[in-house]
């Protein structure tokens, strides 16, 4: 048998696949008014601080934001609430924000509440190319209204739809210029699924490394999902509930 010629791959060090951007303003440059955006994080843990600040600077309005929570007053998504840039939130728990409550009660803000696992799985299904799934969460409650119910093995389940977004924005611990991402501790939360679910995914990372420096065994989001990446700066990493052990 004639020798099979090895395919020569592009050297990733010379070809950056044009994912690297200079910073958050360039990363979000084309997000239009009315866009649907997924933002990673749980509470304030692992939120894309640099891109949220850039969205506030850009001033685009009528956004639909998919995020488990809505930040706190003046920080995280709370920044975009203060500037009235959010039209609708899709979340599971939103109780930490007075401005949020004010806008909700005055009718300025629309909210769609999902059970947390349903929200996470709707995003995960979008990432996997599955249009819908069945979950028991919420059966027999008001969130079941209008949803198809099916019985499997004598138990009742609601049909829930995959949740897509025009843009996903996440913050990872480390990433390389090909878009491979590694997350630290509980910052994976919604971010890994969101990173895989966006039509365009933007990743800001605490530490940007060259291709080959991340161990492929440890990559949690493969670069194929990520379209734009940059090294962020000045992370505040604010803590929502600072609890310490009394010694």
């Amino acid at each position, binding site marked *: 048998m004639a020798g099979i010629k090895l395919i020569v791959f592009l050297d990733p060090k010379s070809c950056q696949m044009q994912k690297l951007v200079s910073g958050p303003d360039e990363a979000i440059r084309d997000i239009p008014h009315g866009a649907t955006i997924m933002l990673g994080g*749980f*509470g*304030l*843990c*692992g939120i894309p601080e640099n891109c949220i600040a850039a969205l506030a600077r850009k001033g685009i309005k009528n956004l639909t934001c998919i995020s*488990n929570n809505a930040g706190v007053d003046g920080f995280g998504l709370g920044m975009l609430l203060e500037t009235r840039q959010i039209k609708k939130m899709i*979340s*599971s*728990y*939103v*109780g*930490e924000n007075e401005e949020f*409550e004010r806008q*909700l*009660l005055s009718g300025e803000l629309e909210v769609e*509440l999902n*059970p*947390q*696992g*349903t929200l*996470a*799985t709707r*995003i*995960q299904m979008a990432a996997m190319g599955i249009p819908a799934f069945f*979950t*028991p*969460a*919420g*059966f*027999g*409650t*008001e*969130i079941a209204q209008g949803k198809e119910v099916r019985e499997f093995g004598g138990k009742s389940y609601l049909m829930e739809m995959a949740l897509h977004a025009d843009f996903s924005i996440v913050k990872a*611990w480390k990433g390389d210029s090909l878009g491979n991402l590694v997350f*630290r*501790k*509980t*910052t*994976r*939360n*919604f*971010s*890994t*699924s969101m990173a895989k679910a966006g039509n365009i995914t933007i990743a800001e990372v605490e530490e940007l490394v060259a291709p080959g420096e991340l161990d492929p065994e440890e990559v949690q989001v493969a670069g194929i999902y990520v379209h734009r990446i940059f090294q962020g700066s000045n992370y505040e*990493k*604010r*803590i*929502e*509930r*600072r*609890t*310490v*052990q009394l*010694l």
Partner: protein
Amino acid sequence: MGLDKFGIAKRISRELKDGMYVNLGIGIPTLVANYIPADISIMLQSENGMLGMGPYPAEAEIDADLINAGKETVTILPGGAFFDSAESFGMIRAGKVDLTVLGAMEVSETGDIANWKIPGKMVKGMGGAMDLVASARNIIVAMQHTNPKGESKLLPACTLPLTGVRCVKKVVTDLAVLDITPEGFLLLERAPGVSVEEIRSKTAGKLIVRGEVPEMDL
């Protein structure tokens, strides 16, 4: 009289068995972790994405990247693991978590639970409660027997919007331990110094009393 919140947590800790994977909700359920018997070892699951949750950190160990489902800074014990929220709820739905302890505003005699919404008040959201109650293999509710107005929280049917249906297995209150059975609330134990009559008067749902009801052994 009756138990304070620490007493309720201590009584629930008696339900823990060696090797269990347990999810503790916010409030009284979190306190259960302080009373895990010394001779058993359990793994705490936090639904944002962690198994092997440890105690609050010392000041020098605080890490903004390591929080629990209540958004509190915590630690992770040796042998713990991190994962994302989709996987976390996958393990909950698949029945891998042995026991869930959570608070409630109302529980019905058929095991329905209401704990996320009061009509007319600001709705904060259900968080992971609906997923947990729909899927956990065993659910214990930790709560006060009556609300601040003195009205029973153990009802024939919940009046508040439901979190889940026919899911609660056991209720531990400041006054009593009760199982949810097909016939109603079965009174298992009384808090020290609390009479069956007092429990009966404060339980609006159907209460079943069989023979002598022992005091809790705390």
